[in-house]
């Protein structure tokens, strides 16, 4: 009898425990759902906001959509007053212009104008920026590593960096001509001091101990820059190029505006003579797109080639 009683009690207890556990589980699920519904983690406002994937996408698109809406309404308003208005042309006018400049061969030369302009500009900015990257790297490394060289040129480079290149444009054009060289030199002079200083600062940040250690381990005077410092500077150099590209575009457009036969800046300033915003706006969008893609590919280059750097 007693054993039966204890067993029944035992079974009841077990049953109770199971039911309790079950209830607890349900309660936890409800709590969890409630929490999710209440969303203790804010999605947008405040420092703890963690927008989800979809919200992220919407948020990223929103300013663009707003810009387009503002443009379309302003353009619609102006076109309603004057159908020939050139300042804010309609989308269809811009499409026509793009069609004419990008996809129809030119009557005079038989080539595609926009393609020609793009290639001409890209080669100028490409050569210019590579030139200043190489120069900036070499001079920056030397300033950073060798004290003697630092005394010789750091003040000078800092001085040069402050000169606004556009102010001395006539001198540049007279010294280097108005051809390709003049344009490349403007981009070069405009961007290399900053790259140089950036490289120098990166070198300066490398701990002294690292150099002492490698010297102790038997590194030679030339091995230190090549094996220890150069690899650490390289990703920073690419970052520096990324930042300089913005300035490089400004100088490119400026040089093409002053004396040129082709190029993106040339076209913009040429058609500006009759306020052809239907050509200018697509060109500006195109320049922005190119700049954005170049920037993006440099980011991915750094991420792929220098994983240790981007993890920081």
């Amino acid at each position, binding site marked *: 009898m007693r054993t039966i009683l204890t067993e029944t009690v035992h079974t009841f207890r077990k049953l109770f425990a199971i039911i309790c556990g079950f209830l607890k589980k349900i309660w936890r699920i409800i709590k969890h759902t409630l929490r999710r519904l209440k969303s203790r983690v804010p999605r947008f406002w405040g420092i703890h906001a963690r927008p989800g994937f979809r919200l992220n996408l919407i948020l990223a698109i929103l300013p663009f959509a707003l810009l387009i809406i503002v443009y379309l309404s302003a353009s619609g308003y102006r076109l309603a007053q004057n159908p*020939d208005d050139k300042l804010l042309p309609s989308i269809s006018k811009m499409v026509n212009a793009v069609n004419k400049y990008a996809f129809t061969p030119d009557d005079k030369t038989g080539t595609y104008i926009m393609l020609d302009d793009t290639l001409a500009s890209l080669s100028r900015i490409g050569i210019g920026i590579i030139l200043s990257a190489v120069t900036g790297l070499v001079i920056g490394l030397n300033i950073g590593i060798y004290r003697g060289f630092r005394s010789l040129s750091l003040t000078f480079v800092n001085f040069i960096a402050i000169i606004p290149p556009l102010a001395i444009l006539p001198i540049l054009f007279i010294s280097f001509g108005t051809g390709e060289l003049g344009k490349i030199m403007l981009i070069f002079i405009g961007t290399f001091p900053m790259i140089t200083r950036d490289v120098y600062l990166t070198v300066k940040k490398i701990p002294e101990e690292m150099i002492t250690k490698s010297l102790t381990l038997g590194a030679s005077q030339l091995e230190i820059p090549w094996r220890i410092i150069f690899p650490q500077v390289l990703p920073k150099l690419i970052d520096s190029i990324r930042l300089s590209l913005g300035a490089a575009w400004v100088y490119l457009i400026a040089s093409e505006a002053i004396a*040129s036969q082709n190029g993106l800046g040339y076209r913009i300033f*040429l058609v500006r003579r009759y306020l052809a915003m239907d050509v200018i706006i697509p060109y500006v969008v195109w320049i922005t797109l190119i700049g954005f893609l170049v920037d993006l590919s440099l980011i991915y280059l750094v991420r792929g080639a220098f994983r240790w750097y981007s993890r920081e």
Partner: protein
Amino acid sequence: MKRIIIGLFVFTLLFATGCQQDKPTFKLAWSHYTGWEPWAYAEDAGIIAKWADKFGINIEVVLVNDYIESINLYTAGEFDACTMTNMDGLTIPAVGGVDSTVLIIGDFSNGNDGIVVKNGGSVSDLKGREIKLVQLSVSHYLLARALEMNALTEKDVTLVNTSDADIGTLYLSDTSPTATIVTWNPILMQVRDAPDTTVVFDSSSIPGEIIDLAVVKTDAPESFKKALTGAWYEVMTHMQDGHPKYNEAIEFMAKTAGGTVDEFKAQLKTTAMFYEAAEAVDFNKSAKLKETMEYVRTFSFDHGLYAEAESKDYVGIEFPDGSVLGNQDNVKLRFDVTYMQMAADSKLE
């Protein structure tokens, strides 16, 4: 906070009432050119204010240091009137759908624009050369006319679009033996005496084709048009030798133009100014003007300045006799002698 809001409210109120009491204000944009310096003088000497008062309005005279930008701003609606050449008046505001009236024909270029050549003696020497110029400007038009008159085409030369701010310096420092530019005054004056340099063609060979105007929105009120015209022809009297204000006026204009009095006088010699309103009226009514505008619109259309329009007849140009060149239903540039005639008859009072 409350105080700030009240303060702002009071300020807005004051501002609003202040505006209400003001006379209507109209704006004229001008840029530096020999034939337009009188506007600066008109403003400085109080002639503009005097005429504006007479018609109960305010006139602001604004210097826009970049010629094309001044026209673009006018076309976009920022100004009620602007100085420009006949070609730019057609291709920027008129093609851009802004109905514009040529209020005043100030002058035509009579040697103010020229083709400057190193080591050459005639237009035919241009063949194969690289020519620096402001493309699609009156310089380009001048070059096209010169080539055409000498049985050459634009395909025989290479054009380099060059900013007018730098073209003079670039020519003077150019080491190439075949350096060539097309430019206008005062740059032309600065480069024409350089070594081995010849001006092989200038606008005196196509007189009356490059015309400098004051253009006003057709729907601007009569008071504004009258006041501008009145002020302009008063300045014109000051600019004629013998007037008591002559020296003062010329000195002022030379200074704003950035040169000496002698230089400015030299520039005036190659500018065929219409000092008398009656002369401008006659020029405006001449058959030659129609011929010129035909050349200009053909050039403009062939160089893509009509944007998408399918023919040069897209825009109509109206002449004083009422005839229209191009589309009668889309008249956007009007040569109007009404106000110049009033000035000639002294009926602007």
